[in-house]
């Protein structure tokens, strides 16, 4: 029991800096979360909030100009049961290659761009199989690999999979490409799937289908998932837990139901108000006022205070608000709750 409940991934104080012409810029700051096997964490935030960067750090696929700050910790439990500190790996470590694709797989926003145009779908899928003999039960022959890939294509709902195997990405429709991308990511049965806005580029009906499919496959394969999105409606549909990010920091996190029903942080509340709700009738949508500032001009104190309707002058612009537990696992970083919750 305790082994199953133990976290698959524990992230603590993850901080990522980028080197720019004007010096170091902090894209992700002191991010922390736990992820248990079989659970889905939704990462929400506007563009530039550091959602993608923090997940890319998990497979160490950051641009050359990025640096994971010392003190960051990402502990991942491998299939073998062994614990691995991802932040401590050297970029050339061979274990990193086993991690990528074998333990943690990625789905990208633009399946067209994430597939190379000059190799067939099947070729790129088999590549993942050949790269991870440890994850797929030994070295496969070409015929075996093809069989598994075709099976996987069929599993994600692609009709005529044997034909699609030999086709190039541009010969598939957008929805089919995203299904193929999912098939590619899951073919090695990873323990963790990171989905970076996988439905953003799709139209709404396809979006719902893909979300259903991902949820189904997550349950079937028993893997954990980190789902990045800027869409609160998607979170409601797919996530068990949610973490709301703003300017590289997690401002609120907790069980998805709880956070969506009783959002505490003014930013989370603002995001939810910006969402259309059928039961609210003709209520006007309220956009979050202002723009997300550049990480270069990070405001002092609470990063959200310049846009916050409830800001307390003299407090919010001075120091970072403490993280307060306001419910079972529901945490919020805001001074409004500092008194009642205590810490």
């Amino acid at each position: 029991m305790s082994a199953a409940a133990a976290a698959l991934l524990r992230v603590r104080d993850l901080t990522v800096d980028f080197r720019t012409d004007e010096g170091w810029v902090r894209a992700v700051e002191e991010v922390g979360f736990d992820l248990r096997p079989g659970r889905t964490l939704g990462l929400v935030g506007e563009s530039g909030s550091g959602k993608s960067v923090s997940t890319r750090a998990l497979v160490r696929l950051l641009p050359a100009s990025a640096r994971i700050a010392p003190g960051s910790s990402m502990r991942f439990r491998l299939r073998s049961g062994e614990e691995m500190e991802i932040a401590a790996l050297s970029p050339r470590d061979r274990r990193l290659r086993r991690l990528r694709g074998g333990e943690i797989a990625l789905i990208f926003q633009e399946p067209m761009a994430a597939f190379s145009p000059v190799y067939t779908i099947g070729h790129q899928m088999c590549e993942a199989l050949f790269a991870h003999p440890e994850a797929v039960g030994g070295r496969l022959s070409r015929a075996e690999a093809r069989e598994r890939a075709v099976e996987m294509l069929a599993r994600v709902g692609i009709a005529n999979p044997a034909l699609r195997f030999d086709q190039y990405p541009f010969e598939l429709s957008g929805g089919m490409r995203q299904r193929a991308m999912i098939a590619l990511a899951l073919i090695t049965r990873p323990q963790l799937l990171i989905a970076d806005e996988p439905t953003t580029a799709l139209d709404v009906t396809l979006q719902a289908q893909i979300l259903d499919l991902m949820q189904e496959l997550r349950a079937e394969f028993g893997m954990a998932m980190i789902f990045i999105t800027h869409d609160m409606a998607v979170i409601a549909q797919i996530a068990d837990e949610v973490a709301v990010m703003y300017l590289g920091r997690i401002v609120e996190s907790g069980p998805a139901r709880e956070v969506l029903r009783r959002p505490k942080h003014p930013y989370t509340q603002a995001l939810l108000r910006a969402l259309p709700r059928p039961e609210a009738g003709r209520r006007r949508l309220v956009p979050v006022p202002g723009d997300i500032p550049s990480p270069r001009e990070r405001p002092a104190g609470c990063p959200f205070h310049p846009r916050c309707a409830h800001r307390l002058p003299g407090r919010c612009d001075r120091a970072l608000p403490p993280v307060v537990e306001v419910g079972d696992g529901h945490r919020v970083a805001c001074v409004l709750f500092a008194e009642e919750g205590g810490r």
Partner: protein
Amino acid sequence: MLRFILQRAIGMVVTMFFVSIMVFVIMELPPGDYADRYAFRKFSGTGVVVTEEDIESIRKQFGLDRPAWERYLTWIWGIVTRFDFGPSFAFETSVTDVIGERVGLTLVLLVATLLLTYLLSIPIGIYAAVRRQSLADYGLTVVSYLGLAIPNFMLALILLYIGVTYFDTTVGGLFSPEFEKAPWSWAKFRDLLAHLFVPAVVLAWSATALQLQTVRATMSDELHKPYVDAARARGLGEAKVILKYPARLAINPVVSTIGFDINRIFSELPIVALVLGLPELGELLLRSFLDLDMYVAGAILLMLTFVIVFMNFVSDIVLALLDPRIRLEGG
């Protein structure tokens, strides 16, 4: 794919047809014809008075009195059926004899130059892009701009000087004196390769500099595309990721400009050949224009364009093999 090749082949034939007409028009363009020239050369200074009739009979003798379309057809027919490019008036023999060995040597030089260009520019360009903004990258950029800036005749002179002073090679030519008239043998071939090296380096110099920049630029673009990260995310090793994914696309622009490279090499050839004393076609082309020896000029122009058109055909096919988007959508 077969249909694609067939289409391109037909396109090539059609292009060559129009090119041959243009070449023929160019041959007809200069004022006067070889009959005037011939009469002038043969009789000037001899005191013989040349009349209109004399020139007319010379014209008849060379078949220059026929209408243009008839001469064109005879010319083309000879080339296509017998590989006969017509007579060379100045040398009083057939064009094929005059051009003969020079064609082979020019082609060998062209191929050697192209190989050298691609063997150098592709790997170095890829390396420079991957190590972008490193010392190696900046160094290569400087060298390649030097490559574009140094005139090739100067480079030829420098290499000749170095060759003669330090390596004791014979100056110029494609063969050492002892092999000049010798029949083909392994030793002669090796001698040719040794002599080809300097002209090939000189000719490849600027083409390499240019293509290196092209490869580097394309590679830099491709390196940051999501599919590269996606390949890394599958757990592939870095070398495999680079060579299999972005590098594969980075050579496309090189392949598609083979024709331009040939053209540039051929334009530079006469000057380099002059400095290095090479028997090649460019210099002959210049001389034949001066002599109004139009069948020789026509043959050279036709062959040059044929090589370019043919290499474009080859590059189309190679591109289609490299990139399925062309193969499957272009047809």
